[in-house]
Every structure is written in structure tokens, then in C-alpha cells.
């Protein structure tokens, strides 16, 4: 009985205070299960950005409206069904303006068509899988291989004159597999041959059969495309087999502190392209501030995926400001298309959808890993 | 004459089906007692209840001490050995290993070697077969091994379940002589047997079970003559 009375009192009290408006985003990502390594960091980035905005007084849109940012998190685990279910639940909740995430392609690929049908914006925070059919409601913040990989290979061809490229990739990770195929297909055009094209599956431990073949192929550059657990093992086993060659990857994986620890620094000197990510950078006070409050909040270093989460939430808040709405998804979608060279931690953001939801000004920095979480951009 | 085993008001049921209803029996030290009855009369269930292999109600006492509810492996350590129905040897173990299992509770100390020899003298055929897998023995040899496995732990009470089952008449004859010889050396025996005539020849006292109830009991001579036995067996 007591709780009922308390609730009644609360309802009465609320109208007295100015109606506190809320802009509500649904954050869907892989928080548990095998793809949690990426999803959980994005969720932390999103929640931290929302907290930072609310602590600084909330959102003030261009039409005088003031909002607090609200984020509800849904864990898609590693399942396609749960990702689509969570998206349908978010669409059915009229207070939700848009969906942030996911990172795993197992979630983003099936969510794209459903977002188009339910007319709710979705923005990928790390999934690089090729999308067969875009629609006006699907966006992607992170850089994708289509833009970055050919650029990187051209730079490496120019600087290192690589001739024989071997590739070892995870066939179950759509983004990783997509980039390996892209590098294979652009071999003639950029001027190198594909010495070996070896696949493995997430969860594998032993890569010696494939690496023995690669060792025999005498490749001078080896592209390694897989998730953290497998990529680290490939690097370690290459050292054990005495394979010496330039190592190449995408998505800035060599700059991830976790990968540095797992390989005891063997990724030093590796080349990768990535959006912008650094633990410290004198020229970037905004990064320094974020890294500082991130470590205070979560007790561990942020990764590129933490940046993606932070940036995605900030891009969404900017669009909400321009659309002066917390509920009209169509106006919000149109506002997203007005985002041009919007500065983010990991680079810039520009969207023109249709024709597709790619981030047209996603940063592509070809770099060489120099230390734990530090790298040098190649000019 | 001290009482080795006493059972009173024994009730055993499988789910809702009662198998044994208010059975009472005793085995004085040194005697051979038989439990007779047709198939499904509850003979095996009674034995299994005594060994603690099935849930049962009622009192079961060994030398005055209750053993109802004591786990099976401890009952064996109190000196009760079992020759199961169909012998149930460990067929993937050798003859020697089956004997070692028989003496598992006693450990295989120095006395074990001499006990093994005793068994091989009692059953010479087993000596030649000692390295063979128990599963490869003939029916008669398996029966010998089953008895040897039970005797090797020097029990005070030997419970035999249908020892004559599946054996040729000549083999049954020598088997019953051996049982008498073993008893003559002071070992009390409780024997479940369908072959009533043979059993009554060597048993001192017998109980007749019918559909889970005690239909009759008495000395072998009395039962031999009683019409109850004829009725149960000859369906008179």
C-alpha cells in the first residue's frame, strides 16, 4: 500500500516543474557472447557521451528546445534474431528517436532491411560488411574497406614496393572477409600478385597449416583479417614459424592495446588503415578529455570502438539539434543528411543517403604501429 | 543358535506396483535356507531389498543390528556376499580381475593370494582360464567364477539368486553338491531357486512366496510333502 501512495505523490509533483523533455536513443550492440569484445566498448562510449552531454546541461536545439539524453541498451548477444527483435521493439516504442549501433555484422546486416521497413534510423558502429541493398534509414559511422583498403595498398606499393601479398582471413566475419576479397580483387590494378589466400573460422586456435602454406609462398606482405583472439594467435604463430614479412590489416586492429598485450608487441611495425584513434595526441585536447573521463568511469583504456560509440551518440545529438525534434524520425533522418564534415574523435562525418548510408568523410589514415596504442601516419 | 539374518514386515514396490508384501524370514548361522516361488513371486525383490539395491520398508537385521538403509557397499563389508541372478560377471575384466573385484572391500593383501589359490583348488577349471576375459567362459565356468567371486571375501552369509538358471542338469547336480560342501564349512546360505525339488534336497528350511506374499514355510521335509508346494508348482 505504501508504495502506491508514494507513486501517486510523484505523479502530482511532476507538473509543477517545467516539463523535462527527453531525447531517447536505443543502443543495440553485442554485450555478451563472442562478439562482445567490440559491442561492449561501443556501449561504454555511447553511455559516456550521453553522461557528458547531460552533465554539461543537456541538449539545446536550434528552436529553443532543451532535452536530456536518455539511452536504453539492448544486448543482441551474438544472435541475428535478437538483433532484429530488439530493433522491432525499439521501432514499436514511440519515445525512441533512433538506434545507435550495432558493431557485429551479424547484427547490422539483417537490421538494414528491417530499419527500412519500420522507418527508424540505424547507424553501424564498426560493422564493415558489404551491404547489398541500402535504404534511406540505414547509416554507417565507421570507415569501410571499400574506401580504405585500396588506398592503403596503393600507399604500401609506393613506399615498400610489395610484390607478393598473402592473405589469411576469418570467413565468419563479414567485414574481415570482405576486405580480404577486396585486396585480392585489386591485385592487378595496384600491381602485386596474391601469393596465398587462406581462410579460418572464429574460435580456431591453430593456424599452422595455413601459415605453413604462406611461409612456402615467400610472400613479402601478409594481410591478417580476423577478430582480436584469432588475429593475435596468427601473429604469434607467424613468429614461431619464423615468418618474417610486413604485416597488414584493416580497422586499426594493430593499434588496439589488447592486441599489443596478446602479441607482446609483435605487431610493432605493422601497417593498417583506420579512422583516427590514439590514447594521447598533443594536438587533440578533445581526445585527451574523453580518454581521461573514460578511464575514470570504466577503469580501462578506450579502444577505437569506444570512440565510435562516443562519436555516434554525438552525431545523433547534433542531428536532433538541427531537426528540433525528439520523436519525428523522418525529420531526424533528413537532419542526418545535413551533417557535413562534422568533427568527431575518430575523424569526420558526412552523410548523403540516398544513395547509401556510408560516412563519406570517414577518416582513412594509413599508419604504422609504433607502440602500445601509438602509431605514425604514413604520408 | 544365534540368528544371522532376520527380516520382518518387508515391503517393496516399484512405483505403484507392490512386489513384496509383509514378508518375514530368518537365516540362523550355519543353515541353508531357500526361497521358492514361481517367476515374479518377489524372490529377487526380497534379495535386492536385503542388499539395499531397492527401496524397501520393514526391518532387516544382521546379527541383531539393523542394516535397512545402509548403502549396498557397506552391507558387503559386514560379511554379506551375492551371486546375482544370471551371474552378472564383469565380462570386460579377466577371471583374475573378477576375483580381485570380489575381494575389493578386503584389499588384496598377502591373504588374497592364498585365497585365490583356495578358489582355484575349489574350482580347478578357473585356474587355466585365469587370464581370460570372464565373458569368454562357458555357462558352468561362469557360475563357478560367480561363486568364487562371492566366496573370496570370506563372507558370513552367501546370498545366491537362481544359481541353477541356464545350466545343464549334470552341471546343476555337481553345483548343488558344491553348495553343500561350502555350507558344511560353516557358511550360511540364503538361496533363491525356482528348481524347488533340487533346492529342498539340500536346504534345511524353506519359504514359499506367491505373488509377493509368504504362502508357506517350514522344514524341507514338511514342504516336500505339502500340497501348497505342489499347487504352486504343478498348478494342481
Amino acid at each position, binding site marked *: 500500500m505504501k508504495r502506491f501512495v508514494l507513486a501517486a505523490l510523484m505523479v502530482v509533483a511532476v507538473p509543477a516543474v517545467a516539463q523535462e523533455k527527453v531525447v531517447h536513443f536505443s543502443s543495440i550492440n553485442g554485450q555478451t557472447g563472442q562478439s562482445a569484445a567490440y559491442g561492449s566498448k561501443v556501449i561504454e562510449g555511447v553511455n559516456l557521451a550521453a553522461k557528458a552531454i547531460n552533465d554539461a546541461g543537456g541538449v539545446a536545439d536550434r528552436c529553443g528546445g532543451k532535452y536530456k539524453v536518455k539511452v536504453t541498451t539492448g544486448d543482441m548477444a551474438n544472435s541475428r534474431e535478437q538483433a532484429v527483435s530488439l530493433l522491432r521493439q525499439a521501432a514499436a516504442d514511440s519515445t525512441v528517436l533512433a538506434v545507435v549501433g550495432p558493431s557485429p555484422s551479424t547484427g547490422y546486416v539483417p537490421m538494414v*532491411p528491417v530499419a527500412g*521497413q519500420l522507418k527508424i534510423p540505424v547507424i553501424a558502429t564498426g560493422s564493415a560488411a558489404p551491404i547489398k541493398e541500402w535504404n534511406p534509414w540505414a547509416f554507417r559511422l565507421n570507415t569501410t574497406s571499400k574506401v580504405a583498403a585500396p588506398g592503403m595498398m596503393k600507399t604500401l606499393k609506393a613506399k615498400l614496393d610489395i610484390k607478393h601479398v598473402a592473405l589469411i582471413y576469418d570467413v565468419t566475419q563479414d567485414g574481415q572477409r570482405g576486405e580480404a576479397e577486396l585486396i585480392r580483387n585489386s591485385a592487378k590494378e595496384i600491381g602485386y600478385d596474391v601469393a596465398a589466400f587462406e581462410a579460418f573460422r572464429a574460435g580456431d586456435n591453430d593456424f599452422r597449416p595455413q601459415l605453413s602454406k604462406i611461409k612456402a609462398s615467400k610472400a613479402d606482405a601478409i594481410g591478417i583479417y580476423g577478430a582480436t583472439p584469432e588475429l593475435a594467435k596468427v601473429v604469434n604463430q607467424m613468429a614461431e614459424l619464423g615468418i618474417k614479412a610486413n604485416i597488414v590489416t584493416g580497422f586499426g586492429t594493430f593499434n588496439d592495446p589488447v592486441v599489443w598485450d596478446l602479441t607482446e608487441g609483435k605487431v610493432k611495425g605493422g601497417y593498417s588503415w583506420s579512422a583516427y584513434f590514439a590514447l594521447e595526441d598533443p594536438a587533440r585536447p578533445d581526445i585527451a578529455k574523453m580518454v581521461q573521463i573514460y578511464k575514470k568511469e570504466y577503469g580501462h583504456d578506450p579502444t577505437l570502438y569506444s570512440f565510435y560509440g562516443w562519436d555516434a551518440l554525438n552525431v545523433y545529438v547534433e542531428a536532433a539539434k538541427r531537426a528540433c525534434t525528439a520523436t519525428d524520425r523522418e525529420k531526424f533522418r533528413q537532419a542526418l543528411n545535413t551533417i557535413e564534415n562534422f568533427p568527431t574523435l575518430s575523424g569526420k562525418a558526412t552523410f548523403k543517403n540516398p544513395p547509401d548510408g556510408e560516412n563519406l568523410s570517414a577518416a582513412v589514415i594509413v599508419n604504422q604501429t609504433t607502440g602500445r596504442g601509438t602509431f605514425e601516419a604514413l604520408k | 543358535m544365534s540368528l544371522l539374518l532376520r527380516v520382518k514386515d518387508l515391503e517393496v514396490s516399484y512405483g505403484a506396483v507392490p512386489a513384496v508384501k509383509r514378508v518375514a524370514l530368518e537365516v540362523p548361522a550355519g543353515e541353508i535356507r531357500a526361497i521358492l516361488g514361481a517367476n515374479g513371486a518377489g524372490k529377487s525383490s526380497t534379495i535386492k531389498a536385503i542388499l539395499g539395491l531397492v527401496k524397501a520398508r520393514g526391518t532387516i537385521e544382521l546379527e541383531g543390528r539393523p542394516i535397512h538403509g545402509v548403502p549396498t557397499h557397506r552391507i558387503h563389508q559386514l560379511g554379506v556376499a551375492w551371486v546375482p541372478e544370471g551371474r552378472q560377471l564383469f565380462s570386460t575384466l579377466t577371471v583374475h580381475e573378477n576375483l580381485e573385484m570380489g575381494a575389493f572391500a578386503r584389499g588384496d593383501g598377502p591373504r588374497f593370494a592364498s585365497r585365490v589359490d583356495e578358489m582355484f583348488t575349489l574350482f580347478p577349471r578357473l585356474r587355466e582360464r585365469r587370464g581370460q576375459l570372464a565373458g569368454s567362459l562357458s555357462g558352468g565356468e561362469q557360475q563357478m567364477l560367480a561363486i568364487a567371486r562371492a566366496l573370496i571375501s570370506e563372507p558370513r552369509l552367501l546370498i545366491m539368486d537362481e544359481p541353477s538358471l541356464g545350466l545343464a542338469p549334470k552341471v546343476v547336480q555337481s553345483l548343488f553338491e558344491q553348495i553343500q560342501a561350502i555350507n558344511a564349512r560353516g557358511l550360511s546360505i540364503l538361496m533363491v531357486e525356482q528348481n524347488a525339488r533340487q533346492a529342498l534336497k539340500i536346504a534345511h528350511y524353506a519359504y514359499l512366496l506367491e505373488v509377493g506374499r509368504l504362502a508357506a514355510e517350514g522344514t524341507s521335509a514338511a514342504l516336500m510333502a505339502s500340497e501348497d508346494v505342489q499347487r504352486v508348482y504343478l498348478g494342481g
Partner: protein
Amino acid sequence: MFWTPVLITAGINSIIALGLYITMSSGPLSVAHAALAGMGGYLGAVLTTNFGWPFALAILAGVLLGLVTGMLLGLLIVRMNELVAGLTTLGFGETMAVIAFNIDYIGGANAFTGIPLRTTLPLVYAVLAVILFVAWRYDHSRLGYAARATRDSPVTADAMGINITWVKSITFGIGAAIAALGGVLRAHYILVQGPEDMGFFISVGFLIFVVFGGSYVFWGPLFGAMTLTILPELLRFSTKDRFIIYGVLLTVMVILRPQGFITRRSMR
């Protein structure tokens, strides 16, 4: 409606679980039903997406594919006991997953996408009602009794003149057809059909639904599938510990009710 996606998934899982129930009624512990559902899903999706077939025809095609594959599998394992039959289906399921992985026409590792949305809540529960009716009729049919006789003691069933090979094959076929039907419905709701849905661990999930719910009466798999699909959603309040609680609950519940939650009156 917030709970629609969960209810649709629970309904589809119940359909597939009922298919598994019918297959298991003649004995085999099949862990192929996720693969059979996946095959139905792939075929239905290709027909509606690439060939523009109407949804009803795509369902029929999926069901036929399931029936034929199921009957063949049933013949393959007729000589095996319960556990070994189940394990052969493990090989079938995983091999199907790897084959789907390597066929680019159906999207390979990137899964087959762009499937039109056809499955709705009313349709799922209408189909579920029909399947429940089929299972109820099956339980009381000659085939149903023959199947249970075959499961409980093949020797006596043989002696009673039951053609065991035919019974095992047709029950596996019907069960597989129903699972394929569930697969087609799922594909046209999730709008993506991938190879991962066909593997061993997914099939084990369906096996747990049936045995947990009670594999002796058709209400069992329905109860099992509904409970164990909705339960993880109820546990969403603790996002981090959701699966720890789910695992512990699964173990505790199966220990408390080993014979399954719903049992025949005679087995109470």
C-alpha cells in the same frame, strides 16, 4: 506492441519443437532439426526473393524439401539405437552448415539477405494451432502408437508386425517437414537466413525445449519452447548476468522435473 517480436519467435520455436517431438516419438534424438529448418528457410527465401513465388507456394516447397530430406535421414538411421541415431544427425546438421557456408549463390558466410517480410503474429499462431491439431491427431493415430511402440521396444514392435523402417522414415519426414515450415516462417520474419542457424548448438536448443517441456505428450514441447524463449527476454533486466541466470535456471528446473514439465496422466 513491445512483445510481438518475442511472441513470434516463441511461436516459430514451438512449431519447430513440435516437429522435433514427432520425429523423436519414434526414437531418434535428432540434432538435425535446426539444419532442416534452415534448409526450409533457404529454399523458401530463394523462391520468394529471386523467383517472386507467392509465400504460400514457398512454404509448400519448404515443407516438401523437409519431408523428403527427413524421410531419407530416417532411413539412414533406422538400424541405430537412440543415442547413435542422434549423433549421426549431428554430423548431418554441421555438414549442412558448412555446405551453406560455401555456396555463394545463397550468400555464403554473408547469409542470404533481402527476404520480403511475410510472417505476421496472427499467421504464426494460426499455423501453430494447425500444427498442434496435427500433433494431437498424430498422438492418437495408428502411426502415433506404432511410433511409440518402435521407440519403447523395437523388437516387440517388429514382432507385432509394425514396419519399423517405414514408421521411422515417415515420422522423421513429418517432423522434418514441420521444422522446415517453421524455418520458412522464420526466414520471412528475420529477413536473413544464415548458415550459423543450422549448427549443432542451435539444434541442441530445440532438443532442450522438447525434453525440458516433456517429450511424451505434445503439450510438452509447446511449453518448453514458449518458456525457454520468453525466459531470456524476461531476464533482460540484468543485461550482464542474463545468461548466467538462464543457465542456472535451466539446470535447476531439469533436476526438479527430470521427466519434463508436462507428462501423460499415467506417468504422473
